[in-house]
């Protein structure tokens, strides 16, 4: 995590001045995907970089210690060792940025990560995830408990009732959505959020992080997200302190693409370890 957002005086005129030109945003979203392809070794390097931004996530009702443990192991060894060696990247310490679980599974994740001897942070969704429609008191308690269990990052669901009625909250990171909605991370929405981050930075000098989540499943998608952030905010945002991708299936597809890059063959799923 980056330095905390120290916050500023609430100036609602900033918000009332915001104008979004939807057709223009849609066109820009289309352009970025078409114009910023990367190929060959650039693609391999970018994909490995994307791995380091992933919040490797499991948010299922039937999560147990065993699948959380497997997830943590995958977080530590996201890409098969021989593939990394072939790329001469095995000594770069490539892991995912964090693992992300429900509050009740935080202790499992902390335990599993400690056992495998790594310091990947554990993120927890909290505060009545995914709706946020619980009392402030229980939501605060939830955060407190997750932190006590060892979570170092909390994905807070903001109170959208307050937002829709014009009462705002501040944060260090903003996330496109919970990943549990019917529409999650889309490019046009992301452009608007990234521009807001840029405006805030220009006004205050504080850098806010960005996390798209939900629906990012393919290696190609992840590359587009990287170039979107690079284009809109610049290279300084391309680090785990300021950029995360919330995803679960994405990692496997990236690994398959790396496999193809190294071997020239398309991998069968059984060729790669599951998470």
């Amino acid at each position, binding site marked *: 995590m980056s330095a905390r957002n120290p916050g500023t005086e609430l100036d609602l005129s900033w918000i009332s001045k915001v*104008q979004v*030109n*939807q*057709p*223009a*945003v*849609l*066109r820009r979203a289309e352009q970025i995907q*078409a*114009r*910023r*392809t*990367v*190929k*060959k*070794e*650039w693609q*391999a*390097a*970018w994909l*490995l*970089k994307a791995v380091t931004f992933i919040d490797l996530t499991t948010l299922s009702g039937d999560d147990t210690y065993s699948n959380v443990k497997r997830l943590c192991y995958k977080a530590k060894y996201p890409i098969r060792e021989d593939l990394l060696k*072939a*790329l*001469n*990247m095995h000594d*770069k310490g490539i892991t995912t940025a964090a693992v992300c679980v429900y509050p009740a599974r935080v202790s499992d994740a902390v335990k599993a990560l400690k056992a495998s001897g790594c310091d990947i942070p554990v993120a927890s969704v909290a505060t009545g995830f995914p709706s946020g429609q619980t009392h402030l008191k229980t939501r605060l308690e939830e955060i407190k408990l997750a932190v006590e269990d060892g979570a170092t990052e909390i994905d807070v669901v903001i109170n959208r009732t307050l937002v829709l009625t014009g009462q705002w909250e501040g944060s260090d990171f903003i996330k496109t959505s919970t990943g549990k909605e019917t529409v999650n991370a889309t490019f046009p929405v992301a452009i608007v959020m990234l521009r807001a981050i*840029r405006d805030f930075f*220009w006004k205050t000098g504080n850098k806010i992080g960005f996390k798209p989540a939900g629906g990012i499943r393919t290696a190609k998608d992840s590359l587009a997200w*990287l*170039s979107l952030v*690079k*284009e809109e905010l610049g*290279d300084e945002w*391309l680090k785990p302190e300021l950029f995360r991708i919330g995803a679960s299936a994405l990692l496997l597809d990236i690994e398959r693409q790396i496999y193809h*890059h*190294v*071997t*020239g063959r398309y991998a069968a799923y059984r060729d790669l370890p599951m998470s």
Partner: protein
Amino acid sequence: MAATRAESRAREIFTTLEYGPVPESHACVLAWLDTQDRCLGHYVDGKWLKPEHRDSLPCQDPVTGEHLASCLQAQPEDVAAAAEAARTALESWSGLPGASRAQHLTRLAKMIQKHQRLLWTLESLVTGRAVREVRDRDIPLALQLLQYHAIQAHSQEEALAGWEPMGVVGLILPPTFSLLEMMWRICPALAVGCTVVVLVPPASPTPLLLAQLAGELGPFPGILNVLSGPTSLVPVLAGQPGVQKVAFCGSVEGGLRLLVQESVWEETMRRLQARMERLRGGRGLDGAVDMGTRGAAARDLAQHYVREAQSQGAQVFQAGDVPSDSPFFPPTLVSDLPPAAPGTQAEVPWPVVVASPFRTAKEALAMANGTPRGGSASVWSERLGQALELGYGLQVGTVWVNAHGLRDPAVPTGGCRESGSSRHGGLDGLYEYLRPSGTPARLPYRSENLNYETFGLAVPSTLPAGPETGPSPAPPYGLFVAGRFQAPGARSSRPIQDSQGKLHGYVAEGGAKDVRGAVEAAHQAAPGWVGQSPGARAALLWALAAALERREPTLALRLERHGVEPKAAKAEVKLSVRRLRDWGARAQAQNHSLQVAELRGPVLRLREPLGVLGVVCPDERPLLAFMSLLAPTLALGNTVVLVPSRTCPIPALDVCQDMATLLPAGVVNVVTGDQDHLARCLALHQDVQALWYFGSAQGSQFSEWASAGNLKPVWVSRGCPRAWEQEAAGAGPELELRAARTKALWLPMGD
């Protein structure tokens, strides 16, 4: 495993996270050029034409300098061969039912679809433009154009009844954007039944490939012929028998002028610069560049412009990830260019943007309209009312609100002033290649003896010509300018004879200064007249019609003195009255909206007045022709300077007495005098927006030549009389088309 050489690279990229090249292979282009033994000729009548003993020019990759092929340069006899092929093909092609032409165009679209990679690679390779632009924009648009025009051809017999194809069309193309610019023009031409001869600049092979694709479709090989050659061949092409029209387009998509409101100037500049820093330039065939190159000449032009601007004290900002060597040039933002500096009026070259601040929307409009060009513009504002105000006020062919550069086959695009008056796309684009059925074909005849320097320069002096034999009532005397009769600057008069050769009366001898005064009066009246609602204009035209009706006995007598049968004279007055009423009624309902693909929201097709029109009336039908020409120009919101019939101007002057009381001063101005001299004054006037000349062949030729000075649209009769009493010739849609211009206003929606 292909994993030894590059892997150290991956480590480095992992840290820098830089973009890499995404090269597209141009092997397909080389293979195609090999089929021609790397020597491109011309494509005429479905065959490659490679005459011997021709100069050839190399076609090179503008970035690497790689020699791709040599291109033969056409000679006049090659142009003649292409025109001959087009003429022959015209007989069968124009005779086909529209539905069959539609089928053929659809087949061409499929053919292009099958070979699109070759097309986009070739276009990007030889022009240096970003392949992404060609692949993702030009090719899909080319296909849409064919499909749209196939549909238009399919319903041509019903939708365009009363019109026929012009014939063989000559087309002159610029070096860049040749593929798309060609499609915008050949699609409507072919759809309505014309055949085409295209002259492309040296070393532009894409049109040749397109012609080959079309030629290989079979039965109509000669409909599209492409020659490569120098611009010195343009007059040769224009002079070929059967060539009815020559369309040309200059370089397109140059640099931009940006006007930014002072209150958001700093913020806008900051955002603009931030965005420019992220632009990537490089070889066109790299799939991840935003901008390619337009060649070394364009680069030199940009560099020269920027240096000039700098020397005049302008601020220059350059950014972006662009190779520093020729032919590349970085995106450049020029600001603080002093308003009076020479560069402010000059055309901005690509890829330069010149930004200037403005205070109010009104000021922005004045600045935007204060250039000789009028192609397209975009307005960016979240205030809808203000955006529309600007959109309507901008004197350009296309306005995008909160968008830029959108195009669709159904939306007419074009321009005004020096950007040219022709339209492409939509119904407007089709009319460019049609003429009213029965119009005499344009003859390639040009008088070599016509001296442009002296034509109409001197006015023959006039002397008293005997007694006036009782004209009753006495005709008004003077030039009708700014709503009243005024004495001519020359203070001399010309006699008007009746059909017996007796003196009917004297009219004022107008001259250059009188035309100048009339044009000025017309300009002063223009804003008020445009501002009237169509309904108000219609009411005034109807009031004028009623006044004309009351004057019928006098007007009929005047015509009778000029040898018109009493019955015919009455009929002419009656028909003149009807013209005014009909055009009054048509003043309504000129605008409509279009729905296009890939845009949520309407595109408004606005019919706007041209401005101040100069009209030189024919000798024949002195009252009816005058009214038939005046009524549509007024109905569509123009103000006008008319030169009435040379032989019988008095009825027009009679009507001026009514216009003096009914119409706002200056809306109509009537200048009598020597037709050639007044035509000369109007044609050479830079602030007359269009000229209609109905007179001699020589006068027509002169008007066309002189009007080129500000590229004003001209309509000339070439000495052919017109059947003014007939509906098609006297009140047909041709007049409506010529009396206004089309503007497309794009209005994207979004929440």
